[in-house]
């Protein structure tokens, strides 16, 4: 009996010893280095998916891998963050908070967090100046569009509801608001459409609004019947911009089913500098221009009169591969497809544009991956940073400092 008890005590002691020598000693010990760029990398199969920001010093050269180098953001951020000046701004809808964060010492550091619940989700954002962020989103009911003006230094918030919206037609019950919001000529421009929340059918009409700032009253409305989709310039995606001439472009790539069962077109629209309404002389059906269906969520200005647009290799929802094309902005014609770049797997904001160059993080699913660089000045594609493969997606590419 005594012997038996001794054995128990021994095993218990062994168990305690095991528990004592645990924790982080066994983990990798790579010291964090301040990085210039962050590649948002997803890892693993669902439900064991983890999200990391892989820090790199250059997108143009060298090689990198995630091992020991990824800032784990699985429980702190997601790739809907808004990035500017080395900070991330993140509206966490499930926790009802807006936060300002910084990557520091290999971890996410909280600068400030405030309670925030004004939208059911962030639909779009734009910057008024370096210190003023405007965000829009649907009210919880779906029957109004709310806004928030945020002082990004103090996170002081002014919020309210956009007035003068077009009425919701009979048979439809809620608004959808596009993230294709831009600040131009002292006003905000964005679009809305209407949806039947029971059948999810969209009303086939695009309403594009000029909205006063900071009063948020609709001052001008223009419509178009050729699409019922919206763009999305939330944190996740980028489908609108104001170019060097001061003209606004946006892509309605986020499209649903119409009441007759068809899908509406994915179109590019323009609002000229000094104008409050859609440019009726400008309409680009993305699928016609590219010969491919535009992908949801990526249409960026390159400068030099060009824009980069992501397209689906195969038409329809079951498509899993994506390519890139260059458009002549003023004509809406395709200049060429970037055939040098292998088709990549799905991702969201995997392109970073700087100084006329597009840096494209492509997860080819085959062997080693690269940041591919398209130079709009020379129309040349080159291989940049080499990335060890095997990850699930590259969802963002951000300049960190």
């Amino acid at each position, binding site marked *: *009996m005594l012997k*038996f*008890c001794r054995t*128990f005590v021994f095993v*218990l002691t062994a*168990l305690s010893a095991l*528990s004592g020598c*645990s*924790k*982080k000693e066994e*983990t*990798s*010990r*790579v*010291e*964090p280095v301040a990085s210039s760029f962050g590649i948002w990398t997803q890892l*693993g*199969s*669902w439900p*064991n998916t*983890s999200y*990391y920001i892989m820090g790199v010093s250059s997108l143009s050269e060298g090689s990198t891998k995630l*091992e*020991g*180098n*990824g800032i*784990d*953001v*699985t*429980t702190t951020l997601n790739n809907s963050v808004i990035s500017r000046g080395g900070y991330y701004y993140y509206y966490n*809808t*499930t926790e009802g*908070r807006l936060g300002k964060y910084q990557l520091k*010492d*290999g971890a996410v550091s909280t600068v*400030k*967090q*405030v*309670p925030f*619940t*004004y939208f*059911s989700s962030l639909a779009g954002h734009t910057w008024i100046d370096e210190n003023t962020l405007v965000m829009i989103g649907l009210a*919880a*009911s779906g029957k109004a569009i709310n806004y928030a003006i945020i002082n990004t230094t103090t996170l002081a918030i002014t919020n309210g509801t956009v007035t003068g919206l077009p009425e919701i037609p009979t048979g439809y019950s809620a608004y959808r608001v596009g993230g294709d919001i831009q600040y131009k000529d002292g006003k905000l421009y964005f679009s809305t459409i209407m949806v039947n929340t029971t059948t*999810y059918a969209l009303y086939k009409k695009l309403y594009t609004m000029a909205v006063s700032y900071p009063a948020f009253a609709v001052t001008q409305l223009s419509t178009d019947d050729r699409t019922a989709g919206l763009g999305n310039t939330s944190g996740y995606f980028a489908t609108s911009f104001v170019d060097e001439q001061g003209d606004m472009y946006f892509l309605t790539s986020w499209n649903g*089913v119409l009441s007759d*069962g*068809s899908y509406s077109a994915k179109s590019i629209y323009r609002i000229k500098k000094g104008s409050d309404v859609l440019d009726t002389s400008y309409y680009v059906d993305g699928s016609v221009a590219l010969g491919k269906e535009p*992908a*949801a969520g990526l249409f960026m200005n390159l400068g030099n009169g060009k824009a980069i647009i992501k397209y689906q290799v195969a038409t329809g*929802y079951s498509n899993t591969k994506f390519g890139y094309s260059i458009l002549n902005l003023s004509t809406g014609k395709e200049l060429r497809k970037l055939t040098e770049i292998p088709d990549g*797997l*799905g991702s969201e904001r995997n392109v970073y544009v700087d100084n006329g160059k597009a840096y494209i993080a492509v997860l080819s*699913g*085959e*062997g080693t991956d690269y940041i591919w660089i398209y130079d709009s000045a020379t129309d040349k594609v080159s291989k940049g940073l080499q990335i*060890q*493969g*095997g990850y*699930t997606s590259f969802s963002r590419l951000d300049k960190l400092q």
Partner: protein
Amino acid sequence: MCSKKPLFYILAVFLSLTSMGVMAQFKVTGKVSGLDGEALEGVSVKIKGRQTGTHTDSKGAYELALSKAGSYILEFSSIGYTRIEETVSATSAQPVVTLEVVLTASSVNMDEVTVHGKTETQQLREQAFAVSAIDARKLANTTADLGQVLNRSTGIKIREQGGMGSDFEFSINGLSGKSIKFFLDGIPLEIMGSAMNLNNIPINLAERIEVYKGVAPVELGSDALGGAVNIVTNKSLSNYLDVSHSYGSFQTHQGAITGQWVKPSLGLVLKGSSFFNYSLNNYLMREVEVRDFENNEFVITNARRFHDRYRSWMGQAEIGLVNKKWADVLFLGFSYTTYDKQVQTGVRQSIVYGAVTRNGTGRNLSVRYKKDGLVNGHLDVNLYATYSRDEYALADTTLRKYYWDGQYIEGNPETGSYRITQVTRPRYFTRLNANYHLAENHDLNVNYTFDQVTNETYNSLVATEDDVPGRLSKHLVGLAYQQKFWDRLTNTFMGKFYGVATDKKQYDLSLARYVPMHSFKPYVGYGLASVYKIDKNSGIKASYEHTYRLQDVNEVFGDGYQVINNLELNPESSDNLNLGGFYGRQKGSHNVYAEASTFLRKAEGFIYANQYSNNQIKYENLSNVLIRGADAEVRYNDRSGFSAMLNVTYQNALDNTRFVNNSGSGTVSATYRKKVPNQPWMFGNLDLGWGRSNVWQKASRLQVNWSTSYTHWYYRSWEGFATTNSLEIIPKQLIHNLMLAYSLENGRYNLSLEAKNLTNQLAFDNFRLQRPGRALFVKFRYFLK
């Protein structure tokens, strides 16, 4: 000449009949009664080792012919009674033997701590299957629910999201979720409604719990990929009443009553059981965020949970006849379950809810029939049929964001969707099991299960019914052949057929109307379980099964809007292997039992939702897992009343998804063969007990139990990728419980005190959701037999 032939034949037949008549002169007759003297009808009387047998009539009388003079061992058995053997000798001088037999009801003494001889649970552990068997009768005075009891077994981990009634994940050897099926007396537990969960059924309702790891017998006809838990209730045929109530921390009440009344002369049995649970679950949450309204920022503080009240009630009644010539058992039963709960958090504790509720009811009507000894004693049949209806509703009807101090600001629906989701699940379930005794030591078992459930889900704020309900029908046929050699080697060969039919309407855009969709897919599983007994107390065993978790209706057909269909979806499948051994030894007053096993699970095609770039999702076979592990348990008890149990489980679950998104080609996934995160991989339990009878008073017993649970730390995300400063781990946990129980009048009156999480450790679960700190309970139990 010809005319003489018939005469010859007649004579021959006469002589042979006569000789048979002479042989039939040897017989044994008598009467079987219970302890109270009442005659027992339908008792099986068999010659041991042969198929010759009969049953007692309504007066308890029997008559069994013997082939010749000699000694015979007779077996008397009946449902609810202890089987006995008696030796009789028939001679030419005394060809007719009279034998009166008295059967005693199967033991229902729930307090008896068996020290000697093999208990039913130990016999189960020595089966070929990898089984954890827990004798619930020994735990009748604790305030633990079945989940907490099972959590102390090898290979089992339950991760609860909170206190009483919270959602939980149950894993056996690393496989969890839909991979594990739960049964009550061999019938799926979910038939009784969504109120019946492992973590709210009081221990007093169970007699025994069996956990089949990886390989499940055909009788549990189900697509249990990772294993099955079978709760076995009291099957004795005696009168008893067990009433208990406990009260403790967080205003927790648990009441249970179970009883039975038997009229042996009529073979009439009335059974009933009920439980009631209530708890505010308002335990302290440590270091959580609340809003500082003045400065509009978050501050860290401790706060009590404020929206976590849970109530549930279950009532079950059965009336039946036993030990009739035409039926050993025929019962008609009805059950009703109901619950309502407040939901306090989302998947992380930083997602605080203050108004979300869930409630539901389940109703069930059932009939069960059993008859042994058909076809000259070769065939035993068992039939169960039921209709049940389970309904529940999840309500999220406020536009608020709550904080841990109970304050809120106006905002959005808490779960992201303003709704009252109504779910209704009518269900038909039938199980037919037949065991055919081929010859001595050779048995054939056939099991057929038909399980059909219709799933209607709609938001009652905008709809009155589900336009596109889904129907899932499973046909499961199991065939097992068991052979025994030399009383040492037992082999069970199993084959299982899985037929899954899914039906759902889908909207056809081209036709502009709903069209019915149907799919039927067959699959075949197989397995083997063997045990070799080295001697009376030790043995080695191995079991293997290729098994499935069948696809669900919504996984195949989606919802027609956001979830698109996938007719190519395959079931989750797994190859499960167990190797183990056991050793028991009794020396003097000491009794030791040890068992150890290793296991392998190669599971493929786990079904998860995959999001497409147009925001629609589709269920696909996305990931594979390879789990290797070992567990061991040692038990000791002696006559002084001391008992001890120690077990340790180690499981190494690796991501076995070679290519990203299980695409079948391309780059090898960076996490391939890496340890799966957010899963405990080493844990153990220690139980120490000491009891003494006749303390302060005759027929009393004092029992003290100490239990410790240990869970080693584990990674929240994948190992080896994150920077040191961002790597998250779930810390180790060491939780102690103490129970003191005192019984009077041989266990009729019982009073127990229990302290859970005695040292008030910070206990976590999935995603670091905090669990209750120290909690105290007192329980009174009255047991009449």
